[in-house]
């Protein structure tokens, strides 16, 4: 039933896409209607998916459509895992579409956005529903292709085009890696249905190969270091509601692929796989957030922060594997729940933040933090909602980001019981990295919010910005509300995820006590527990109490005056701390080694009236160490081979001649002769 409903909404999205080809650009009303239709379809699909998730443990729904590989057909399957991801995808999609109603009016070329947007949503749904390798890869690559088209929507900028190229090439890499992974999984019999793959036994070597390929393939889409380079280029290049989808939702679909292959298709993953994921996750988290800190462009900063969160999720998945391989299924369920929870949470707050960034972008026309500032006065609602997103992503209580980080840390804390020595040492170290990443994320979002929304306006555009339309505010507010609700009542989410972990791991977290105060208890209450609701109430009560007392006893006098600033107020807003200067202490600490950051200050001599100059140079070592050499190698090979285009006919004949002689020689020396 739910499957049919989701399928119907997918068809709806496709219909919207087709209509949009003709209608988009015919006026604002057409865009609004289409976006509204897309949002409605997304909402219905969300409800259907949630209903299916809550109805578990029902047997998974399956369906075979006569498409795709002729002898296989398109197999679809809706189980708990799929239902969870469908809910994430469609909720994110519905909100992005709702936001699009307002945002689309600012879009110079709606025809380049709307058709792809709706189709993109349908493709992501199909990835999650697919139950055979062909349909999966088809949908997977369609998802990449359509999002590429969206990245290319603003194609006049050469940077966007370059981003699109890097993006789709990397996506191609990922797909081919996945194709090989499925090839290994399907074995020589070549049955690409997931049901057959599940039941087929696999030797450890083949399984290991498939696993690594799957990590490469899905990791390149999710943004695991060092396969992340496309992400900070492509995500910001798209229109903001699409950025929200790409960062908040599409990376999750990639992780869905990872989970599906590792935990479902591969059978129980080998223990060493956890080390791969833990190492990659830890490195991704720290590198991602450090990069985010160094950015001065809001959307790019958000994209890098996505990379960080993917790292956090991968650490959770790695822990789940580690525990499962050692028979600790309850701990494994905890780690998996933490990862899934973070997946949902990140989808919510990252979408919220990107939508906020989109609001800033349309209101000011600026994406550069160095030209923003003071927006809290001009756009109070947006600022407030963005602040909620920032608090959530900084993993601060009582919002949802903290819940999943907390669960992940609880899983980390269970690791000493693991028998494996490598893991014993690795997990605490990764835990430390995770903590570092969390703290840096908080720093990063202090910077993002502080520079963009606080202080004084650094440009005329920022000084005259206007608050955005109500529909967009509603879209953001819904996300903020979801962030808050999950933060306060995480027990429901954990219970809701139980069918998923039961399917994947055969274990669930203990049922969360319903009352009083909705605490969450990962293992036992004496070990650790946390009640978001109570903490929230506590803070609320104490803050009100403090306010009450102070208003009773203290002076009420308030006088507005120029800023004090130690007696030396600087009239120009440009003298404020900028994004670059905010990051400077951390850049000094981390950047000199990780980014090879070099600062150069040119001070004029005393009496010289020239301004002092500050130059900063940073390098991306992953890009320079891995991708540029690769590009150079391809370029070199291409250049060398290109000489073959300019030969004379005699030389071409020589090539024919050589080929002939070689083949004859081979034939003469063929062993069978």
């Amino acid at each position: 039933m739910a499957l049919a409903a989701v399928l119907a909404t997918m068809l709806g999205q496709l219909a919207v896409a087709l209509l949009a080809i003709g209608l988009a650009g015919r006026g604002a009303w057409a865009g609004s209607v289409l976006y509204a239709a897309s949002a409605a379809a997304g909402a219905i699909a969300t409800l259907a998916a949630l209903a299916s998730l809550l109805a578990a443990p029902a047997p998974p729904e399956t369906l075979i459509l006569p498409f795709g590989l002729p002898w296989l057909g398109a197999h679809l399957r809706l189980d708990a895992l799929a239902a969870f991801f469908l809910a994430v995808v469609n909720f994110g999609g519905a909100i992005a579409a709702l936001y699009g109603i307002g945002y689309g009016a600012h879009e110079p070329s709606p025809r380049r956005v709307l058709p792809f947007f709706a189709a993109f949503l349908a493709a992501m749904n199909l990835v999650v529903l697919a139950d055979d390798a062909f349909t999966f890869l088809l949908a997977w690559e369609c998802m990449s292709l359509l999002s590429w088209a969206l990245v290319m929507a603003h194609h006049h900028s050469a940077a966007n085009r370059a981003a699109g190229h890097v993006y789709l090439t990397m996506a191609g890499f990922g797909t081919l890696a996945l194709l090989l992974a499925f090839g290994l999984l399907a074995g020589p019999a070549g049955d690409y249905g997931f049901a057959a793959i599940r039941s087929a036994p696999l030797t450890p070597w083949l399984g290991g190969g498939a696993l690594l390929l799957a990590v490469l393939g899905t990791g390149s889409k999710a943004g695991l270091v060092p396969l992340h380079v496309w992400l900070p280029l492509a995500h910001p290049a798209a229109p903001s509601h699409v950025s929200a989808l790409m960062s908040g939702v599409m990376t999750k679909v990639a992780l869905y692929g990872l989970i599906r292959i590792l935990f479902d298709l591969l059978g129980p993953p080998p223990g060493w796989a956890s080390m791969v994921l833990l190492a990659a996750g830890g490195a991704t988290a720290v590198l991602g957030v450090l990069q985010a800190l160094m950015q001065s462009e809001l959307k790019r900063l958000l994209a890098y922060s996505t990379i960080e969160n993917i790292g956090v999720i991968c650490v959770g998945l790695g822990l789940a594997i580690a525990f499962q391989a050692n028979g600790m299924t309850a701990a494994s369920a905890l780690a998996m729940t933490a990862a899934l929870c973070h997946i949902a949470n990140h989808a919510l707050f990252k979408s919220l933040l990107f939508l906020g960034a989109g609001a800033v972008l349309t209101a000011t026309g600026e994406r550069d933090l160095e030209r923003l500032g003071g927006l809290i006065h001009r756009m109070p609602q947006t600022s407030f909602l963005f602040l909620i997103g920032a608090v959530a992503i900084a993993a601060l209580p009582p919002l949802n980001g903290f819940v999943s980080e907390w669960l992940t840390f609880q899983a980390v804390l269970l690791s000493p019981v693991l028998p494996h020595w490598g893991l014993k040492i690795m997990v605490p170290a990764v835990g430390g990295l995770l903590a570092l990443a969390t703290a840096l994320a908080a720093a990063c979002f202090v910077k993002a919010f502080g520079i963009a929304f606080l202080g004084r306006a650094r440009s005329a555009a920022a000084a005259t910005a206007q608050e955005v339309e109500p529909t967009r505010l509603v879209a953001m507010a819904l996300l903020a509300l979801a962030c808050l609700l999950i933060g306060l009542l995480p027990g429901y989410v954990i219970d809701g995820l139980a069918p998923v972990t039961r399917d994947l791991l055969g274990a669930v977290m203990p049922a969360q006590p319903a009352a009083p105060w909705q605490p969450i208890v990962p293992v036992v209450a004496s070990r650790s527990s946390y009640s978001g609701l109570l903490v929230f109430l506590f803070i609320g009560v104490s803050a009100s109490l403090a306010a009450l007392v102070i208003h009773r006893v203290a002076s009420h006098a308030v006088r507005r005056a120029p800023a004090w600033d130690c007696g030396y107020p600087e009239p120009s807003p440009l003298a404020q701390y900028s994004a670059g200067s905010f990051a400077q202490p951390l850049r000094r600490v981390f950047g000199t080694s990780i980014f090879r950051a070099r600062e150069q200050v040119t001070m004029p001599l005393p009496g010289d009236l020239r301004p002092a100059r500050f130059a900063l140079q940073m390098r991306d070592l992953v890009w320079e160490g891995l991708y540029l050499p690769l590009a150079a190698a391809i370029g070199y090979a291409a250049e060398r081979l290109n000489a073959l285009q300019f030969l004379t006919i005699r030389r071409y004949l020589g090539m024919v001649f050589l080929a002939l002689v070689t083949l004859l020689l081979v034939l003469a020396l063929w062993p069978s002769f």
Partner: protein
Amino acid sequence: MPHGLAFDIAHLLAGGLVLMSFLLLYQVRLYAMLNIFALHALVLALSVAWQALVQGAPHLYITALIALVFKAITIPVALHRIIQRLGIHREIETVVGIGPTMLVGMGLVALAMVVMLPVTANADALAREDLAFALSVVLLGLLVMVTRRNAVSQVVGFMSLENGLVLAATGAKGMPLVVEISVAFSILIAFIVIGIFLFRIRERFDTVDLQALDRFRGERR
């Protein structure tokens, strides 16, 4: 006709064709090459005629006649005139030295033998020898094409290659369409010769003027 004699003569003629190919490889001057080629075609004509006689296949006489008239007479004469017209009769142009070329040629003949002789163990000896020689001639013809810069000498190489084909085709007993094929090839060669003549393609086989090529193809920076 006793089998031994028929075989010996066919063998002799085919071997002569290989020898002529070697001579072609050896010649550096265009006129000399043309003369050798005329001889080459003559030997082919004889060989084909002999096959026609041995196999009792009168239609092969046509092929022999074509070889004689067209390849041994018309084409060399035409090429003579082209060479004169283009003023390239004095040119000596090989890419590698004669010595190495001859060595490579030897190697090719050896290769042809190694490939062909064990292969055709079932076929009768006549066809077998013929085929091995034909392959040698084909390979040597290709070698001529590859080692010469001048269009005319390359055409000569191609024609000697084609002679090898005709040798093979006539050696294959009772092969249909041989005449048609030889006619088709003659037309092809005529096209090539006319092409050289019409388009003044003097050096186009191997222009050293790379800039010219770039301009033509618009492909380089």
